[in-house]
Each structure stands twice: as structure tokens, then as C-alpha cells.
């Protein structure tokens, strides 16, 4: 196992070292010590490596991730796993604003709560939040799944496209064009798989499903203010 201590090594060296790992690297396990809220930790990775960050992180940790698994043993600042393409990001604590924003693929697991705008404009990423999420989550979400084991804040799924939203607790309000939908067997199957991959013991039957009413897809004069 490789250990990089950010008290000794600067951030650029850390990220350059992780970027240098090839598809076939045999240095597959990395630990980052003393993150102290630094920005852009473990960003832009593209190798099947596992990186563990021992502490809280600042803006944009694990952004643009491909293939790698990034474990954050603390809470994450704004924009964690933003624009993730593949791989897995697991946060033991809470996540700040716009976690998993615009993500195209991969799995983001937040074991605490996520704040506002979680999964905004998500494009295929799967997000599993063990706690609650804040307002404007999944705004303009296009595809992928957002699973919330706790409650959702205001304006969930506003202007939603085809992403699936599963919420176990209460939803403070639904955004424009977001509606509750029937939970069919295929959805329970998808949800069971996501909960298992997200290490949640919640039961799929306890969730409700929300999705797009598809009324904002085309311009309609009655939608104008």
C-alpha cells in the first residue's frame, strides 16, 4: 500500500502520481493522510485503483473519476464526485452542495446527509444517500438513479428528464414536472441492487418512486410565465 501525506507532499504531486497509474498498475491501494479540507483531491483518476482519504475534504474531491474507487473517511466539501464517469466514491460522513453533479456513470455512496443540489443534472450516475438530501436535488437530472434513505428537501427533481428518484422518507416538495410514479417489480429490482451496492440495509418496499411527468419536454405556451 502506498501512503501520501499531504503534510509532506503537495497536492499537484499527489494528483500527478495518481494520474500516472496505468490500467495495469500493481500499485492498486493508496492512502492520503492529512487532507485538512484541501481542494481537488484525487481528481481526474483513470485507473482501477483504490484511494482512501483519511479526513475531511474541500471542493471537488474525486471529480471526473473514471474506474477508481475513492473512499473518504470524513465529510466532503462542495462538488464531490462531480462529473464522475465510472468507478465508485464512498463518503463516510456528509457531503456538501451538488454532490455527484452532472455525473455520467459510476456509483456515489454518501453514508451521512447530502446538502442542496445533490445529483443536479445527473446523466447516468447512481447515487445512494443513507441520510437526507437538501433542496433542488436532481434538478434537470437526465438519467441514472438517486436513492435517498432519509428525507428530501424542497423542489425535488425540478425539470426532470429520465432519471429515477427513490425516496424512503418525506419529500418536502416536488419540483416542476416531477411526480410520484408507481413502483413496479422492475423498479424494486433496480432499487434492491442499488441498496446492496450502497451498503444500505433499507428495504426496497419502503421507498416511493418519483420521475418526470414529461410535460416540459417540448415548448408549450402554457408553461411560459
Amino acid at each position: 500500500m502506498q501512503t501520501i501525506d499531504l503534510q509532506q507532499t503537495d497536492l499537484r504531486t499527489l494528483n500527478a502520481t495518481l494520474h500516472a497509474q496505468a490500467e495495469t498498475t500493481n500499485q492498486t491501494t493508496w492512502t492520503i493522510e492529512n487532507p485538512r479540507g484541501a481542494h481537488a483531491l484525487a481528481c481526474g483518476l483513470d485507473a482501477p485503483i483504490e484511494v482512501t482519504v483519511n479526513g475531511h475534504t474541500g471542493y471537488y474531491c474525486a471529480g471526473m473519476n473514471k474506474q477508481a474507487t475513492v473512499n473518504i473517511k470524513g465529510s466532503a466539501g462542495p462538488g464531490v464526485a462531480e462529473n464522475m464517469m465510472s468507478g465508485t466514491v464512498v463518503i463516510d460522513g456528509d457531503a456538501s452542495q451538488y454532490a455527484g453533479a452532472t455525473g455520467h456513470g459510476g456509483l456515489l455512496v454518501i453514508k451521512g446527509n447530502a446538502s442542496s443540489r445533490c445529483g443536479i443534472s445527473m446523466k447516468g450516475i447512481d447515487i445512494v444517500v443513507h441520510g437526507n438530501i437538501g433542496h433542488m436535488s436532481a434538478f434537470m437530472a437526465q438519467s441514472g438513479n438517486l436513492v435517498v434513505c432519509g428525507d428530501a428537501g424542497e423542489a425535488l427533481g425540478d425539470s426532470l428528464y429520465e432519471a429515477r428518484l427513490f425516496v424512503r422518507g418525506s419529500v418536502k416538495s416536488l419540483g416542476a414536472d416531477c411526480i410520484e410514479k408507481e413502483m413496479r417489480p422492475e423498479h424494486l429490482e433496480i432499487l434492491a441492487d442499488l441498496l446492496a451496492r450502497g451498503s444500505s440495509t433499507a428495504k426496497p418496499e419502503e421507498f416511493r418512486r418519483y420521475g418526470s411527468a414529461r410535460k416540459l419536454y417540448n415548448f408549450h405556451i402554457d408553461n411560459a410565465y
Partner: protein
Amino acid sequence: MPPEGRCFFGEFTMCGIVGLFLKDSRLEPQLGALLTQMLITMTDRGPDSAGIAIYSGEQEDKTKLTLQSETPETSFEDLAARLGAPLGIPVDVRVKSTHAVVTLPAGQTAAARAVLTDIDPSLRVMSRGDSIEIYKEVGLPKNVAARFEIEKMRGTHGIGHTRMATESAVTTMGAHPFNTGDDQCLVHNGSLSNHNSLRRKLRREGIHIETENDTEVGAAYLTWKMQNGATLGEALQSSLEDLDGFFTFVVGTKDGFGVLRDPIACKPAVMAETDQYVAFGSEYRALVDLPGIEAARVWEPEPATVYFWSHNAAPTSSEKAA
């Protein structure tokens, strides 16, 4: 104060706020040093100017004014005598760079201000109150902290601000914190979009507003509300209705420390609490050197929720006490 490179989902890094409220009096000698460290960490969020409000404690039957001058050598020379003689009261003046802390007998603030306007109209009042002292200047936070020797100051609580100017000029008067009333102050990260109309309205109500700065309008708004009988909590609550724009406010009072984010909450905020203190930072980075931070409860304050801690409250803090 600063707007943003606000993109679709949030903001870039503009302006930094720090705050520290001590529960454990054993940390009081270190307050200035801890706040200075927090402030310097936020330099890249706001390199234009910096300011700090420190509640350094009360002296019995005394009150204070913090003054600022562009020409401290002449303005502060003999000030104790020039101010004390016409009023017939003992006055103590402590000069720190461009600022001077004037200590007066309680109840003499208004009389002293009238005399000050007479003897030197260029003097600016940074703060007034029994405990508060406000220091602010243009320049890098580390230089501002050093010129006022903030590191050596003791106190019960304090708030600081690093500014990236956007809504008005880089000047001392545009720097935060803003004094909103006796022993009250405000720092702000964000930008108010209705500050021009609100400034006109408040001026009609007789509220003195010095600059074109949006935060000063926010501060004046709170002052106006409180002059009309609102508590600080109520004034903050009504600001959610009356202020348009983005803001995270941190406010200080003689005994307490409060936090409020606008309902959209795109300006960042992190809080940490231990048995010894409650701390606020625009980012977690600002908090990493606080004692015992590894074991602190760290969380993000909720939007549109007033948080307040007071030394007057029960031993545990009174969170969300609007």
C-alpha cells in the same frame, strides 16, 4: 459582498468568513491567535481586504469606540486630552496602526462622537460598544492581522472576513465587519441585489448609510429592525423576506454569535462544535488548526435557519434560537 462566478450549481470561491465563539474561558487568551490563523487560511477567497471584530471583554462602567484615520500620526496625537477636556471625563486612547481604541465612561458614546466630529471630521468610527473592537484595512489578511497585532488579543468571541470586492470599491469602509449597533456586527459572503432600493428606503427612515456597499445596507437593515423593537433573531428572520440576493451572514453581539444562510444557500458554510467552542468557516480548511477539531461535530448549517449561541444561555448552546 462579492458576487460570484456563480455557475449552474453553485459558486466559486469568493470572500471568506470565519467566526469563533468560545465556551471554555481557558481558550480566551488564544482567541486572537486562533482567529488570525483561520483568517489567513481564507486569503485565497478574499485577498483585497480583511477585517476582524473581537469581543475583548468589558470593563466595569466603561465603553469603547474604535476609530480609524488615514492620518493616524496627527489624528491620534493627544487625542485623549483633546477629547477628554471638552467632555470633562477621563479618556484612554490605545493606538494600533491606523486604528485607535478609545475607552470612555459608560454612557458617554454619543457625546464623544459629537466632539470627535468637531475636532476631526475625517475620523471614522469602526465600532462602538462595551466589548467590541473592529479592525479592518485593505491588503492581504496576514498583513492586516499583523498591523493590528490581532494574534496577541484575547477575547470571548470574534468574527473575521476576507474580501474579494465585487459590488463596491476596495476601501477600508467597504471592508467587513460592519458595526450594526452597540456591540453588534455583521460579516457577509454573497451579494445583495436589492441594496440600492433598500438603501433609499432606509435613508428615508433616517438610517445613516455611509457607502455604496451592499453589506452595509444589510447591516443597516438589521439596525433599523432592531431600533423598531425586533430582537436580533427576529431581525435576521425578517431579512429572509426583505433582502434579495445571496448571503451567508455571521453576526456578533456582546454575548453571542449567530449564523444565517439565505434559502438558496449557494454560499458555502461549515460549522464545528466541541465542548470548548463553536466555529464557523466558509470552508473546512479554515477550521483545521483549532484545538480538538478531529473530534469536533462538523456540519453544514441549514438554509433559511437562524442559529445563535450565547454566553448568556444555559451551558449548552441554544442552537436555532430565533
